[in-house]
């Protein structure tokens, strides 16, 4: 057992992204990577609070980082792209922008809480968590139930790598993540036995910010993602963000219903796929909790 790291699930993983929470925790347990949930965490502000004022979002994430530090952690892991992005953005702004730093200190003071000291906690995504702890080879050694060449399009979305200046550790050459052509998910799923498709829309936008407020735009963007994946030969789109994931599921259904455009590609969290490869059951990784139904597809592949 390694040292536990702080776990920040965020609001979506308590709601529509429940399967992501379940599968992340299950994969952690199966790999012997303990997680300790942040106490009294708050919402990161997602993509909404910054439109009221970006400094409020910085305050929200700084509060979560401060809690991680107070619990004695040096690393906090967030599976949600939005949460992860906002933690990174807060760290960046607090380090480089005196106005954000001053505003956050003032808000913390008013709320009667200590202010977060920039640089004391490192924020990582669930992809980095598994990759750092085991690496692709370490993971391969633990695979019990290979994905047996399942054809996968790896979809990373916007928030994991843009804008690049808030991710100073990326684009550092071999071994580091790339912001323009991310590959960490590809590597992990390949280790689990998947065949990764050459998918050009890895970092395209799903329109998640306007899933409901501008549904037609979102449906068109999602339909691009789905049809491109099918044209690349993918049977599954692997996701790493609850907003992208449920956006893809909802707009796949909406595209069929409202635009009359049917697509068959399955949508699964990368943690669900890893969990299945590690020998966990479909139930243990929450396959039935997804909005879209992949059960028959997985059953036909021998995953129960």
């Amino acid at each position, binding site marked *: 057992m390694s040292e536990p790291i702080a776990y920040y699930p965020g609001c*979506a993983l308590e709601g529509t992204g429940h399967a992501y929470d379940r599968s992340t925790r299950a994969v952690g347990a199966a790999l012997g990577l303990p997680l300790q949930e942040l106490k009294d965490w708050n919402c990161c502000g997602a993509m909404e609070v910054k*439109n009221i*004022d970006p400094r409020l979002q910085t305050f929200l994430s700084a509060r979560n980082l401060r809690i991680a530090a107070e619990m004695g952690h040096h690393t906090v892991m967030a599976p949600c792209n939005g949460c992860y992005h906002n933690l990174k953005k807060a760290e960046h702004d607090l380090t480089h922008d005196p106005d954000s730093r001053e505003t956050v200190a003032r808000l913390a003071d008013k709320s009667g809480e200590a202010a977060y000291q920039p640089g004391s906690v490192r924020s990582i995504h669930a992809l980095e968590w598994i990759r750092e702890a085991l690496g692709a080879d370490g993971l391969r050694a633990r695979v019990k139930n290979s994905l047996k060449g399942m054809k996968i399009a790896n979809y990373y979305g916007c928030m994991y790598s*843009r804008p690049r200046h808030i991710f100073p550790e990326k684009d550092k050459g071999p071994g580091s993540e790339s912001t323009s052509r991310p590959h960490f998910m590809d590597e992990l799923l390949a280790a689990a036995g998947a065949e990764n498709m050459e998918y050009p829309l890895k970092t395209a936008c799903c329109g998640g910010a306007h899933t409901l407020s501008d549904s037609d735009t979102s449906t068109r963007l999602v339909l691009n993602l789905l049809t491109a994946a099918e044209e690349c030969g993918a049977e599954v789109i692997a996701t790493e963000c609850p907003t992208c994931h449920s956006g893809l599921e909802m707009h796949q259904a909406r595209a069929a219903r409202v635009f009359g455009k049917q697509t068959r590609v399955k949508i699964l969290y990368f943690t669900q796929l890893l969990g299945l490869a590690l020998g966990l059951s479909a139930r243990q990784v929450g396959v039935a*909790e997804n909005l879209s139904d992949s059960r028959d597809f997985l059953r036909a592949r021998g995953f129960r």
Partner: protein
Amino acid sequence: MTIHEKSLIRPENLIQHDKLVIDGVDVSGDWSTFIAPRVITDYNEALEAEIAAMPGGQHIHRCWQCGSCTNACTVNALNPDFNPRYWIYLIRLGMESELLRDKDIIWQCVSCNKCTNICPRDVDPEGVMKATAHWLELKGHTPRSPAMTFDHEFSAQVVATGRIEEGRLLQRFFARTGQKLTQDWLVGLIRGLILRLPVGLLARLGLAALRPPRTRRWDGAQRAMNEFIAEQTTAQRKALGLPPETAR
């Protein structure tokens, strides 16, 4: 006076000639189309400063019009009229009436950050889009967009409880925008999900809707954030020369 390229090549400014003779030379067919000349006088010199006073807009002055933002833009690929580079140009020149022609689509920015990622001048065009949408609303040029309604409902819930409970958020959003909660494409999905879900989990989700999650020890943060929002709203209205907000 600045020459403004786009307004000159709009259909209503084009003059078509069937037959045209210039200095005794018949140029019909070759030189059939002219652009009407015009002089622009309705500049709003304060426009750039006003946008810069909105959250996200403060770096607009850095723009050197390279066009990378528009080139990379997700929404531009769906609708060529969605043009961040051009709007920044108009704002910096103070061409408010031109900007207002596009007022109903600016809010459609999906915050994909392709522009902010590529911008060589750290303008944060994504922030400028939000600042501009904010400005349009405060000035009364547009009603509150569905996206902004969502932002406000979302933020109000975070400030009040520290968390988001999606069911409650959706209910309020659909009510505010006058949409049915039972969008028929959603109903099918949710019905399918409910049939598949284990009873225990269903009970938990039902309970979450009745007793929404809250962050403990949140009172201080709630107070601080509310004060900050009130303070900022006052400052923004002042920057736009608007009277202090009266209760909505």
